[in-house]
């Protein structure tokens, strides 16, 4: 079973509490600076090659074809900040990127150019490692907290200061009368409550690997 999981855990602060704050606050600060491109120009702990490989890796882990690289670069910038504050994190990330080379037989800089199936195969071999899980935790908290990724998901975000959604479509769904009854149709289900490994946990009809070219 996993030794360390994705999400809130494993971020123990000096006070002994959970430090989700780090990632969330980092994401927020970057968002407030529209000129910041992602921060890879001023890395503090990682070298460019490692950072670039991590950008490719984070995209391969959480592929959203519509999202430009800048959003993944911000995640890596946040990892760089953690690496600057904690030598263990720097070593974890640096060595982890080395493992990308081991598992693919290619230089880390070439990782992003590999076929998606090869990227996924390499990542699957690494998914139980603290390296993979540290990166995954950062992506999950940071990427989806960036205010300027929300429009890609159709999410409009903070509302109270706009008068809420009371006059902005809180009840505008209009297709319900025509919605088909699919009780007898095969409907894909993803079950997040199986413990027999990640493969069994995901039961969808979605294709596993496809070319990264489609929009």
């Amino acid at each position, binding site marked *: *079973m996993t030794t360390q*999981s*994705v*999400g*809130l*855990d*494993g971020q*123990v602060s000096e*006070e*002994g*509490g*959970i430090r*989700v704050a780090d990632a*969330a606050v980092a994401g927020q600060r970057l968002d407030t600076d529209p000129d910041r491109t992602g921060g890879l120009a001023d890395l503090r702990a990682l070298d460019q090659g490692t950072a670039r490989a991590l950008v490719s890796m984070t995209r391969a*882990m959480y*592929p*959203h074809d*519509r999202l430009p690289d800048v959003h993944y670069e911000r995640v890596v910038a946040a990892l760089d900040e953690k690496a600057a504050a904690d030598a263990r994190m720097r070593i974890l990330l640096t060595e982890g990127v080395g493992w990308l080379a081991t598992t693919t037989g290619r230089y880390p800089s070439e990782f992003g150019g590999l076929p998606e199936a090869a990227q*996924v195969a390499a*990542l699957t071999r690494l998914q139980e490692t603290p390296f993979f899980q540290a990166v*995954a935790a950062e992506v*999950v*908290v940071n*990427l*989806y*907290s960036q*205010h300027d990724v929300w429009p*890609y*998901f159709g*999410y409009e975000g*903070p*509302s*109270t*200061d706009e008068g*809420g*959604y009371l006059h*902005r479509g*809180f*009840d*505008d*769904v209009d*297709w*319900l009368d025509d*919605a088909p*009854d*699919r009780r007898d149709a095969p*409907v*894909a*289900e*993803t079950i*997040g*409550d199986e413990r027999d490994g*990640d493969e069994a*946990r*995901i039961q*969808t009809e*979605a294709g*596993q*690997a*496809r070319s990264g070219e489609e929009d």
Partner: protein
Amino acid sequence: MPAPFDLTDDSVVVVIGSGAGGGTLANQLAQKGIDVVVLEAGKRVEPEEHVDDEWPAFNQLAWLDMRTNSGTYRLAEDFPNLPAWHSKCVGGSPVHWAGCCPRFQDWEFRTRTVYGEIPGATLLDWPITLEELEPYYDRAEANMGVAGTHGMPLHQPDNNAKVLFEGARRMGYQKYSTGHYAHNSVPYDGRPATVQDGFCFEGNRSRAKWSPLVSDLPKGEATGHLEVRPESMVLRIEHDDAGRVTGVVYADADGAEHLQRARVVCVAGNAIETPRLLLGSASNLHPDGLANSSGQVGRNYMRHMSDTCWGVFDEPVHFYRGNTMAGIVEDEAYHDPDRGFVGGFYMETIHLGPAFMASFMNPHSWGRDFTELMDAYENFAGMWLVGEDMPSATNRVTLNPDVTDQHGLPVPNVHFDDHKNDIDMRDYAADRARTLYQAVGAVKTIRTPPFPASHNMGTARMSERPEDGVVDRWGRAHDVPNLFVSDGSVFTTGAAANPTLTIVALAIRQADHIAEQLAQQAL
């Protein structure tokens, strides 16, 4: 003497915690002219400072002190340091809650009698009945401002509720509505009507949602009989040789320790911190923890049966627009063992923003299976399934001797194993939920494992006999005459209903009792 009160003033009632239980109780006492000091571990964050953004709000409001988690339930693996998701701020967990206000049903106070003996469960009938609590439910609803009660109209259904209702209609369900919801549908009690902002879990910038932060505490403070001390973490409760509690030791924001004297102490720190404090207040007189001669302190921890179903549809829902949980189906909240389990459950709308959705939808998941679902976010509807869970002696809060917090105290460990009844109910409920969304056209459904618990109950339970529980029918400790428990810890069993309304009703009832006892010099 008007607030603020002196540390040496031993005439005050000390209330530990300012949430649904503590905040309500403190105001009710203050309104009767009784001097109250509320010690709240968290900061005072006024609504204007709340943030419509999930992680920043979580970091602003949630209880993030170190905890550990054990047992066979999935949460111990997914969130080993976050067994519960409740608040650390003035106003307590109602600052984070959504607002669902179902009452307990009659038989839910008598589950040992109605369900019979269930192996592995420590069911016990409450020492009180629905009939006794009804007048206090009325007062609680009027105090909070609950849409659908006492003349306040129900909320208009939002997108997520409309999907739920159409699915419910096609399923043949009868009882679906926006539900009793403690969030103003029209202006009430000096607070405005909802703007359907969608950030009930993140505080509430508009003050339309009830919480002690915007209601009870300022009202109590206006009487001059209530002082709220934020950032005051109670470390232990002290008592005299006769066994009466005399005061509490707390740490202020700088870590400096103070002793606040007290005539009466009421503990309302949520069902994890309350037993932790009692256990941590062990003494020669109470070697197993304060008020723990029964051995029941910390046991029977309940968190409600919990499951979540997301439906993915052909067209946009925009389910995040509107109140977070103003949509409920009540048809499954009945007891029928033929379903394969005892007790009932509710279906309630829920939405999360992309940030929380990514963290909670399917922890550990990655790759296109995950991102394709996230890409469909706009077309999601969601419902939370909440039902009665079984109390068990071994589901319990204990002190973890191996891990200490910022005050040097052992952190609480929460141990939980799912009872088979919980699993059977969850599977049944998940199937009903999935079918409901299919009935209205879902092309995919997603089943999300239980969240860190927001409904924490049972760890200082109410019992007729002192050997069966920690407190009596008024919430008074069986072992200590001037010590009360005033939060969800006192729940003998958990029912299917969201617990806040019942916590508030019990606190109002307890305030009447304490005032009467004080007037009679019985405390």
